Every structure is written in C-alpha cells, then in structure tokens.
C-alpha cells in the first residue's frame, strides 16, 4: 500500500452558473486541477467522476466518458462515474485514492459535478428524493428536509436541543462564506431572519436548508513519495474511509445518530492514529442545519446531544475549539450535490496550504465528511500538510 497525496485542486464557483452545462463546468474544474498539479492531461491514468442525478435533472447520463472526451483525456484509461447520492464526490475521491494506494496508477484525476439550476424546485426535490427507499418511504412523499425535520424533532425531544441552535448553524455558516469567492451566498444573516424564514418541512425552515446550486470540483492524486516534485505544498491523505448506513429512516434504532458517520470516523481515526481532538479544521456535511449538529456529534467532536449547545457556545467558529465549515458549508457555500465531496477537499486543502480566505490559524490536520441522503453512504478523509 502506498501513501497518497493531493497535488492539484480545481473548482468552479458553487452558484447558479447560468448558461454553463454540466459538461462545461466539470471540464473547467478538472483543467484547473491538472494545471495546479503542474501536469499535462496525457499523464492522467484514471478518472473518477461523482454525480447524483444528472439523468433526472438534465437528461444526461454516461457523463464520465463525456467529460473525459471534453477534457481531452487519453483513450486508454478507465473513466468511471460513481453515485452515492450527496456522497458521490466523496466516493469518487476515495476510489482515486484506492487506485494510487494500490500502486496501480501514478496520477489519478477525481472530480464531482452537479447541474441543478436548470430544473425547477419541484424537480430538484423529486430528484433528491429518489435516494429514499421508494418502496418503504419514498412513495409517502417524504423529502430530505422532511427527513431531517423528523431527526430534529427527536433531537430536541431527547436532548433539549433548541430551534435557536439550528438557526445558529445557519448564522455561523453564512458569516463564514462572506469571504469565500466560491460561495453561493456571501451575506450575513441574523438569527431573527433565519427563524422568520418560511417553513419547508416543520420545524426546518428555508435558511436551515442548503440551496440549489451548480458546481464542479476536482483534485489530482499521486504517490506521496513523488508529490513534492509536482506541488510545493502536497497534502497527505492519512485516511480515506467509506461506510454504509441505513437507506430507510424507520430501520434506524435512533435517527439522531447516523451510524455510517460514527463508523467512518472511528475507522479514520484508527487508521491515522489520531482522535477527534487532533483535528484542526473540518468541512462536514451540513445539508441542513440539523445535519451539522448531528455530524459534529457523530464525528466525535462533541458528546451525543451536545452539538447544538456547542454552536450556542461558539465552539465551532473559526476561532473556536473545532472550526466547522469555515467555507460556509453546504448551507451557505452551496451544495451541488455530486460535487460537494470534492468541494470539501478543495476547501480543506486550501486551509492546510495556509491559503484560505477564512483561514484557521496553523491548520495542520483537516477532516472532510461527506454523507449520502439518509446517511446510507459516508466518506471521511483525514488530510495533513507537511512541515
């Protein structure tokens, strides 16, 4: 098994990218990552592309060869699309990592992309809901805001979490993305604005939800032993883990814990010989404000039930005990679903290179956490800068 490093990153803004197709935005992000790695396209030996619902939203399937052709990648390499709902990007990253770790490829391109703005809200809601077990609960008309609303009511009932804790996540993340040129939203919001926003699925309101976004992000991976030849600040992958959770909410013993995250974090900490206390900065999956609170507990940053109170105490701000989502997270940076996993990698690499617009001081070890839908897929990466 080889150690693996990230030598290049690229991204589009996460926003409404009017007039830009899925093919175009994926190509741009990939080009930027290859350039950042100081490589030529001809050096790429494999390509993994994460995407969730390009078929449902845009009528376009089979996008890995599509983007590879658009980019001009060599024809003798495998180009593979991976799907795991909102974790598609994380899965693509991990599969690129596995190929390099196995010694089967030197330079691998990984990317994620989603084009959502050309479809209506109803179409997007329906597309996202396709990740539910249709037989079991998809057919009831459950939505993802609805799923996290069910969790929110239990979290409040079991632990005394307050609606202001959820709103506090939105306030923090909007404040964080003010400085992020890649972000969908770059304006602060107040607690009052969040609490007054319209209901989507009670008690989840508009500002508790991530926005519909377009975007693509990409990275280039290579063996750690040669990484310094290609980028002066290579970022080492200490662990890249993927686990599986429940597809159906009623199968969960306690939906306030998403078991795939707990298991992925435990494995990642074990492999890297670290604990939650060693993480300097995290980009985790805040598809909804409630999700950030649950994730922060499941990743071991706070005991179960204390994640909301941690927000209230300011423990997750950039200057806090564990800075969470300094990019603005999915809530404010945006969530082009299949791209997010790579978007998180982009943000953490920037932090660890010391080049982030909302820099966490001396960030040495970063964590990315990407979750699919009901938590049925999860990836966790632990990344480290060199010194």
């Amino acid at each position, binding site marked *: 098994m080889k150690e693996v490093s990230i030598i290049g990153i690229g991204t589009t803004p996460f926003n409404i990218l009017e007039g830009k197709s899925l093919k175009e935005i994926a190509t741009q992000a990939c080009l930027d990552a290859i350039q950042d790695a100081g490589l030529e396209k001809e050096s790429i030996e494999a390509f993994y592309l994460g995407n969730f619902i390009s078929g449902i939203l845009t009528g376009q399937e089979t996008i890995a060869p599509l983007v590879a052709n658009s980019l001009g990648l060599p024809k003798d390499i495998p180009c593979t699309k991976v799907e795991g709902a909102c974790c598609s990007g994380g899965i693509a990253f991990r599969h690129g990592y596995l190929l390099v770790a196995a010694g089967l490829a030197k330079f691998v391109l990984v990317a994620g992309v989603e084009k959502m703005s050309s479809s209506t809200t109803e179409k997007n809601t329906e597309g996202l809901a396709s990740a539910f077990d249709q037989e079991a609960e998809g057919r009831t008309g459950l939505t993802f805001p609805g799923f996290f609303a069910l969790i929110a009511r239990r979290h409040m009932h079991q632990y005394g979490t307050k609606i202001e804790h959820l709103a506090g996540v939105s306030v923090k993340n909007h404040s964080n993305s003010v400085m992020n040129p890649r972000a969908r939203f770059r304006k602060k919001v107040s607690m009052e604005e969040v609490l007054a926003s319209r209901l989507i699925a009670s008690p989840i309101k508009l500002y508790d939800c991530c926005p519909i976004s377009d975007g693509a992000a990409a990275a280039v991976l290579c063996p750690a032993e040669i990484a310094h030849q290609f980028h002066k600040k290579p970022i080492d992958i200490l662990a890249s883990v993927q686990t599986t959770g429940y597809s159906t*909410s009623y199968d969960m013993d306690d939906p306030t814990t998403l078991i795939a995250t707990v298991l992925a974090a435990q494995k990642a900490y074990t492999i890297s010989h670290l604990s939650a206390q060693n993480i300097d900065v995290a980009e985790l999956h805040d598809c909804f404000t409630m999700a950030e609170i649950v994730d922060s507990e499941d990743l071991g940053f706070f005991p179960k039930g204390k994640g909301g109170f941690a927000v209230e105490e300011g423990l997750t701000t950039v200057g806090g005990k564990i800075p969470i989502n300094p990019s603005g997270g999915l809530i404010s940076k945006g969530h082009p679903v299949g791209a997010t996993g790579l978007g998180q990698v982009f943000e953490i690499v920037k932090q660890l290179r010391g080049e982030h617009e909302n820099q966490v001081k001396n960030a040495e070890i970063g964590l990315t956490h990407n979750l699919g839908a009901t938590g049925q897929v999860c990836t966790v990466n632990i990344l480290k800068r060199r010194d």
Partner: protein
Amino acid sequence: MTVLRCNACGSFSIPPRLFCPKCAHGVLEERETQGFGEIYSFTTIYVAPEIFKDQVPYDIALVELKEGVKVTARMKKPQDSRLEIGAPVRFCMKDATGYWFELESA
C-alpha cells in the same frame, strides 16, 4: 396491517423484506396487527416533489407500533388537531402512497 416477525430473534419488521433487519438470520413470518402505536416523530411538508405538489401541506410521521417496530406513515389529521411525540395513533389504511395512520380520538 401485515408485519413480519423473525423466527430467530422475535423482532418485527415492515414488509417487503428478505432478511430480518435486526439479526439478518431467521425466517420472516407474516403476522397481522391492529396497528396501534404512537408518534415517534413527525413533520409537515410544505415543499414537495412534483407529483405531491397539490397535496401540500401534508403530514408525515415515524410511528412506533406496540410491537416495537417503526414505520413511516402519512397522517390523516383533522384540521384543528396537533401532532405530538407520544400521541397515540392507529393504522387506518394502505394504498399506493403507503401506510396511513390517524390520531386515536380521545
């Protein structure tokens, strides 16, 4: 309402399924239940997928049956009544949308 009971560990689950979600081992046998339970959690949906657009707002609950198994259900609810965690409910029907439950009247 039909549920499944595992002959290895005795736990109940919602059909259709091949393996017990708790122990993955036993044979699953069909059992009839009257479908009494209580609300484990609930939400009202205001923004829906295309095909559910004209039903908005509608209520969805996670119901915990007396048998100890949970099921995702649509709630039939009179206009002026409220859903609460712990409120007693009972199964009323199953259709293409799934299981429908209603609040037990006082």
